[in-house]
């Protein structure tokens, strides 16, 4: 018995009962479809998160007062009680950290930027001079905030690409004076366009010297500290040195936990991975249930098929088909049936993922391994649930089968 023959028989019986086949395959189609759609969307989000949201360089550690994700009320209370980080902490780190290539701090607030009669509400970031280097910021025009600007708290700012676009549609913004929170600032630079993430623009900001930021909004707001190691291998040493300094300054007992958060691009991605894993587990559960139900429906329809084709089985046996020939024929048939369901599921799942990409800011990417897995799992479901009907067919008595009307 050859495979081609069995596959041909399977496909022709599929074609002969189009509606029945479609209904039969619904469970498998839905199972595979949901796996492909969710896997594609999560995979796309993973790429997106890694490339667009957590753009931190791999050799940079961020130090902040609060954890990025707080999972319980107790944690929240503990986080809220933590001491602030100040520029004095930054100076202490700068003094002690031998492995640090650069350290810097930033602090943020929001305010209205005005030029003439136009205005835009933006993020206002106070930067030390090192921050653009550490974060790898790029300029469209002009220059960054310099150490001199920070030392003298000069009224200068770098604005985001969108801010420049709104306030200065027809003129060069460099050298112009804008008003931030009622104070005049000279625009010295324009950031390079970064585009948007999940629908919100990443080009709506202005940076000013951190010293000036503290003059305007106060010096008691916690700052975010950044330390750059220069290469990834030196990052653990940097983290150790930073931890040592901060723990000493914050008078922590040796057994106490850190009361500040240190994160790297790796740990940020880990946080995201934990979230997406939960989504993933739920989807796999749903898909698993639909695949089992789908498999049972395939088994049912194969049993019907065996009964309908009792006579055919009798003929084949009379002409010399052995048990295993009949077994193989029906196994291939149910596997092929389920595979068709898998193919439809993959196609529908992929189109859902693409539609989502098209209609929403959520990006999706259809992974070849997810497609292969979907097809493999659906075929396996067909094989597994085909065993019983195929055995039933193989064990038919040829005399009885030939007599069957």
């Amino acid at each position, binding site marked *: 018995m050859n495979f081609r023959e069995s596959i041909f028989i399977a496909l022709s019986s599929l074609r002969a009962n189009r509606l029945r086949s479609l209904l039969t395959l619904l469970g498998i189609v839905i199972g595979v479809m949901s796996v492909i759609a969710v896997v594609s969307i999560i995979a796309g989000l993973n790429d997106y998160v890694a490339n667009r949201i957590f753009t931190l360089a791999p050799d940079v550690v961020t130090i902040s007062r609060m954890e990025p994700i707080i999972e319980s009320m107790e944690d929240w209370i503990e986080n809220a009680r933590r001491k602030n980080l100040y520029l004095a902490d930054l100076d202490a780190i700068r003094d002690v950290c031998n492995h640090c290539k650069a350290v810097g701090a930033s602090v943020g607030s929001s305010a209205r930027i005005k030029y003439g009669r136009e205005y835009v509400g933006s993020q206002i970031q106070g930067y030390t001079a090192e921050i653009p280097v550490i974060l790898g910021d790029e300029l469209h025009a002009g220059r960054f905030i310099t150490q001199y600007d920070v030392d003298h708290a000069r009224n200068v700012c770098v604005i985001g690409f969108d801010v420049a676009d709104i306030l200065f549609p027809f003129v060069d913004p460099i050298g112009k004076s804008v008003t931030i929170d009622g104070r005049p600032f000279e625009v010295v630079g324009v950031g390079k366009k970064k585009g948007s993430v999940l629908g919100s623009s990443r080009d709506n900001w202005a940076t000013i010297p951190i010293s000036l930021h503290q003059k305007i909004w106060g010096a008691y707001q916690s700052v975010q500290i950044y330390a750059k190691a220069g290469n990834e291998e030196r990052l653990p040493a940097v983290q150790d040195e930073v931890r040592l300094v901060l723990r000493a300054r914050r008078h922590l007992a040796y057994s106490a936990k850190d009361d500040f958060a240190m994160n790297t691009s790796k740990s940020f991605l880990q946080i995201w991975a934990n979230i997406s894993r939960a989504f993933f587990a739920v989807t796999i559960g749903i898909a698993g249930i639909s695949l089992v139900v789908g498999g049972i429906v395939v088994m049912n329809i194969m049993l019907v098929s065996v009964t309908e084709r009792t006579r055919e089985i009798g003929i084949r046996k009379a*002409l*010399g088909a*052995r048990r295993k020939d009949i077994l193989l024929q029906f196994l291939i048939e149910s596997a092929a049936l389920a595979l068709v369901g898998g193919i439809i599921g993959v196609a529908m799942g992929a189109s859902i993922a693409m539609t989502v990409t098209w209609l929403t800011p959520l990006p999706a990417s259809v992974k070849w391994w997810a497609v292969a897995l979907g097809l493999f799992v659906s075929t396996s479901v067909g094989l597994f649930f085909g065993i019983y009907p195929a055995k039933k067919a193989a064990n038919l008595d040829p005399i009885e089968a030939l007599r069957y009307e």
Partner: protein
Amino acid sequence: MADSAANNVLIRTERLWKTYQMGSAQVHALQDVTFEIQRNEYVAIMGPSGSGKSTLMNLIGCLDTPTEGKYWLNEKLVSKMKDDELAHIRNKEIGFVFQTFNLLARSTALHNVELPLIYSGVSSKDRTARAQESLAMVELTDRMHHKPNELSGGQRQRVAIARALVNRPSIILADEPTGNLDSATGEEILKLFDKLHSEGNTIILVTHERDIAASTHRIISIRDGRIASDEPNTPRIPVAPAAGSAS
């Protein structure tokens, strides 16, 4: 058995019994059946319904095994064989022709004829060539790409005969091959059997009609599960159906 005849004996049965258990009663479908059939014989097994001729046909056709007794086919003892061995024997040694044709409705004539070759592992190229050759023997070359429902009853039975011939079996076992055909077409099929017999095939024809049995060279009558008579027969010369079919 005489040694000189031994290599020419195709079928030899020795005290065949077939017993069915019906509730508490035992029904003997066949009792103590012993006979021999030589190579290139044309034999009719005749009997009314319920006589046990179908049971005998199933045994000869290796679709079933006897409760007791021995059956040699082509010098192989098949009465003790397992299912898959019997399937192999059916495939190689026996060509079935059924009353209801038993063709696969969704397949073309050519594919129907190829079917036994698929189960004997013949390559797909050789399969097609041999199936075409077989269809040429029954003069259906021009019909080979038609499906059974596009063929007349006589043509269908000829496809079935081509299928029976395709694996060059030792015997052709025909069960009421004219039962579903009108008399003219039936006559045509019997002529075809005559031709196949003259070409060296061994044919066993199972029927309840004396008229049909009369076209063979030997008639074994079965009654109540036993051989009632086993006599040579001078076949009537097949005549044109228009002139009547009496022997």
